[in-house]
């Protein structure tokens, strides 16, 4: 008889594909994890599974129409894309917008950050199996969703920014309602902060998991809470403020939330405290909002120009690069969403951790998808479906654009 107890078993290396649906967020994303037993030894992140050709559609639209298209890039931070595109067009037109419009735009951005961070917190609770806190935090997220719906007319696609200002004003009654809402929300967020930090159910699952050390975060150019959770000072609101962030930062009352932990817990702490900071910022914006017009007329034809608009979206730095050509349509429009930067750090975070921790590590960058690979073409008439490779797609799109020259 051989003694089975003494034999050292080396588990075989197995490669597990995770995706094409993200295990945490039910969105398209593809990972290949190589595991030895329960340990992840290698991770390959395959970005660009989903291609929506938004930039190409945008080149055939007018700037005004692109505002709405941009806001539909993301269903969570729609206000950031919408506002940043408007900002880019204003930069290109060299137009100055009224002060009140700047404040309202910034307010919408901050409210967007509050709801996005609470949403993330709920998802994080859910990923570690702490569904009680998930339900409770999402219940309280409704406070800010109602505020957004109240001032913009829609829960998700606020579409508040337009070229030259904002589309709706904030009345005194709404202001009072919001200030009351912020008091409630702040109290609740303080509670969730304590839950996240002190409740064992959550903390023990995220403490020391998914380490991203500051030098690696810097090398992989992590942005937003992912970078700040590793101690990187990256926040466009502080480093390169625009809109009403300029007077806000001049007061010196607000500070960048940093954590030098570098694990998922660090990123969670940054997000929760940042939410409380965003509530304070929104309160400041409401209390210091100047009177006056909310909109300036900007001619639809934008002079030839090349601009880069930056904004701190909830997930990190968002860039809209815009080339205008004197018509009312963009010549080139490029969107660099923050998740794109954070993906590259992901492979490093996953290595050396347990497979069971993969969902929370993946969710910790708060991913959001819009990239490139291949497409499925569904024919609306006979409902057939076919897969098209990138090369064929390029040939077909060149053909289409030859047949449909741009309308001037």
């Amino acid at each position, binding site marked *: 008889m051989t003694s089975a107890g003494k034999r050292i078993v080396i588990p075989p290396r197995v490669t597990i594909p995770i995706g094409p649906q993200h295990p945490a967020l039910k969105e398209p994303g593809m990972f290949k994890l190589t595991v030895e037993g329960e340990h992840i030894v290698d991770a390959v992140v395959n970005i660009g599974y989903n291609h929506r050709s938004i930039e190409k559609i945008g080149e055939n*639209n*007018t700037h*005004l*129409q*692109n*505002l*709405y*298209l941009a806001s*539909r890039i993301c269903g969570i931070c729609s206000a950031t894309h919408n506002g940043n595109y408007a900002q880019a067009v204003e930069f290109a037109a060299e137009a100055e917008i009224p002060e009140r419009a700047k404040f309202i735009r910034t307010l919408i951005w901050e409210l967007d950050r509050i709801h996005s961070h609470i949403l993330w917190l709920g998802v994080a609770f859910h990923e570690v199996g702490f569904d*009680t*806190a998930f339900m*409770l935090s999402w*219940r309280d997220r*409704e406070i800010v969703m*109602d505020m957004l*719906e*109240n001032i913009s*007319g*829609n829960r998700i*696609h606020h*579409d508040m920014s337009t070229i030259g200002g904002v*589309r*709706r004003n904030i009345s005194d009654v709404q202001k009072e309602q919001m200030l009351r809402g912020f008091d409630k929300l702040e109290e609740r967020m303080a*509670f969730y902060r*304590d*839950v996240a*930090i*002190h*409740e*064992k*159910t959550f*903390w*023990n699952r995220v*403490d020391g998991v998914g380490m991203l050390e500051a030098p690696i975060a810097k090398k992989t150019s992590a942005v937003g809470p992912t970078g700040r959770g590793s101690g990187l000072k990256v926040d466009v609101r502080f480093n390169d403020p625009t809109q009403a962030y300029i007077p806000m930062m001049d007061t010196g009352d607000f500070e960048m939330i940093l954590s030098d932990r570098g694990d998922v817990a660090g990123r969670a702490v940054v997000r929760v405290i940042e939410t409380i900071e965003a509530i304070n910022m929104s309160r400041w914006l409401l209390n210091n909002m100047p009177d006056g017009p909310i909109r300036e007329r900007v001619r639809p034809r934008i002079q030839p120009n090349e601009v880069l608009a930056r904004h701190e979206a909830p997930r990190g730095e968002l860039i809209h690069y815009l080339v205008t050509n004197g018509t009312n349509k963009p010549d080139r429009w490029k969107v660099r969403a923050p998740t794109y930067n954070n993906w590259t750090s992901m492979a490093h975070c996953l290595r050396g951790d347990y497979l069971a921790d993969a969902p929370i590590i993946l969710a910790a960058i708060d991913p959001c998808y819009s990239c490139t690979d291949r497409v499925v073409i569904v024919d609306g008439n006979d409902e057939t479906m076919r897969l098209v490779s990138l090369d064929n797609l390029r040939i077909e799109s060149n053909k289409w654009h030859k047949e449909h020259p741009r309308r001037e």
Partner: protein
Amino acid sequence: MARLGKIQPELMKNVRSKQATVRYPFVKAGINVPEGLRARWDYKMPERCTGCKICERVCPAEAIEMIKCRPEDFQTKTGFRPICHLDRCVICGQCVESCPRGVLTLTDSFEMAFLSRDDMIVY
């Protein structure tokens, strides 16, 4: 630092609090419909419409189609009137904003599920 018991008092409180959600399709009371909600498109004041097609041009979703005025319609100056395909409309409100004569509006009726595309055309 980490310990159990942070959430328990909150749980006890919630045992006695009332339900946070509305049993929507069965009960409609309690749904928060704010003033100024953007929902279903409406051709509110046909008699002011000139048929200028501005709404069709600005629509980002190509949801508005200009059709020849039917006999039962108000006859506009150009003989065309807008209709909206709700299946394509993204409820942005740009047509309402751009119409020079204030003809269009977005109402607050938010129930927009239909069984066929043809039912989704708003005249």
